[in-house]
């Protein structure tokens, strides 16, 4: 089934078509489960004026943080930022815009974007700055705000294993935002640690079905740890 083979030959090919001003949805939480090499390719490519939708913005010199170095990011849509000094500097200088979005709302906005749900109501953020200017509606005596879905021109995703048809599974908590991001890109690019043949993954245990995946590539990952906490053996 050649038509379903999503594997591309290079990172350049994986991110082909990314242009200035586009919106990119990225999986990952902190530095866990981030598409390291796809981010690096965006840096290499030098695409500018990007809107990045991601729960966090990496750290200085790693993850999405590297896109700040050449000011490639115009706007971040995130729930928690500021783990890096460059981010803070650009934000205070007005060179970077941030739209803070509650973490659960952000996850749901991505899912809704992929699922053809243009908007949904949530109690999260009602009565706060997040709710300002948004439609309020009461259901069963409680007030909710209307949140619109998010779609990206590209979605960049980090999986663990995938078959050539783009059926992806994630490893442990590196799953996080990746499955929703995968559904919400006009072009969804997935990088994984291992590509296997179709049939090797159990059909009932696929986290991201191949229908969502446009391009697939196998990479090497540093997997940097943000908070290394250990106990004595």
């Amino acid at each position, binding site marked *: 089934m050649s038509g379903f083979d999503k594997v591309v030959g290079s990172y350049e090919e994986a991110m082909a078509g990314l242009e200035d001003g586009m919106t990119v949805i990225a999986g990952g*939480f*902190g*530095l*866990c*489960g981030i598409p390291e090499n796809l981010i690096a390719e965006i840096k290499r490519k030098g695409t500018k004026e990007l809107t990045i939708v991601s*729960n966090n913005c990496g750290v200085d010199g790693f993850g999405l943080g590297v896109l700040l170095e050449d000011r490639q990011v115009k706007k971040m849509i*995130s*729930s*928690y*930022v*500021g783990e890096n000094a460059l981010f*803070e500097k650009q*934000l*205070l200088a007005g060179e970077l815009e*941030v739209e*803070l979005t*509650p*973490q*659960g*709302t952000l*996850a*749901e906005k*991505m*899912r809704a974007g992929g699922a053809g749900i243009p908007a949904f109501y*949530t*109690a*999260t*953020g*009602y*009565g*706060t*700055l*997040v709710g300002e200017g948004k439609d309020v509606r009461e259901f069963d005596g409680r007030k909710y705000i209307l949140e619109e879905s998010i779609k990206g021109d590209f979605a960049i995703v980090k999986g*663990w294993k995938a078959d050539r048809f783009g059926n992806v599974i994630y*490893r*442990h*908590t*590196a*799953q*996080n*935002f*990746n*499955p*929703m991001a995968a559904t919400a890109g006009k072009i969804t690019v997935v990088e994984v640690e291992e590509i296997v043949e179709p049939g090797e993954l159990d059909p009932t245990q696929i*986290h991201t079905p191949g229908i969502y995946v446009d391009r697939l590539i196998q990479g090497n990952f540093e*997997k*940097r*740890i*943000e*908070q*290394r*906490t*250990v*106990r*004595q*053996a």
Partner: protein
Amino acid sequence: MALSREQMAMRVARELQDGYYVNLGIGIPTLVANYVPEGMDVMLQSENGLLGMGQFPTEEEVDADMINAGKQTVTTVTGASIFSSAESFAMIRGGHVDLTVLGAFEVDIEGNIASYMIPGKLIKGMGGAMDLVAGADNIIVLMTHASKHGDSKLLEKCTLPLTGAGCIKKVLTDLAYLEIEDGAFVLKERAPGVSVEEIVEKTAGKLIVPDEVPEMVF
């Protein structure tokens, strides 16, 4: 005397029940896990996508793909499950978590909470806090009664940007355990050796003091 961080965690741990699914915020709330009563089991939910968080890993066990919402390396307990962040917040938003414990800068008599942003300082973001306070029925706010400068954090009206409106009913401070009812704090318990007068003095919002205010016992 004001409660220590450990005593605060111990007092909150008394609200646990066997079989509770619990979300503990960063900071003092995390310590609650150390004081789960004997013979009782709770399962910790971590909002990045983990139900059944275990202790920190040994050096050998450390795995970059296994972290908690504080981005710390962790392990899982037997019977844990791991899922997407959308599923995780479906649990939280849908009210499936039995108890949520989190810190705050301010709480007021309407049950409003401010915990994520101090204007003028850099805004790092609310993370999952807004979802947690909006989704949970059973929330305990754990914070010092007054700021370092001696200003009360239990107010008539929050001054900082809110994390959630009208969602807090229980507050444990280093001085007292209070519940919020009908637009007032109700003093339920006081820390050992702390006088009702001190609590009255350090509570800016309307405070109802019942005839009897038992002292916590540790």
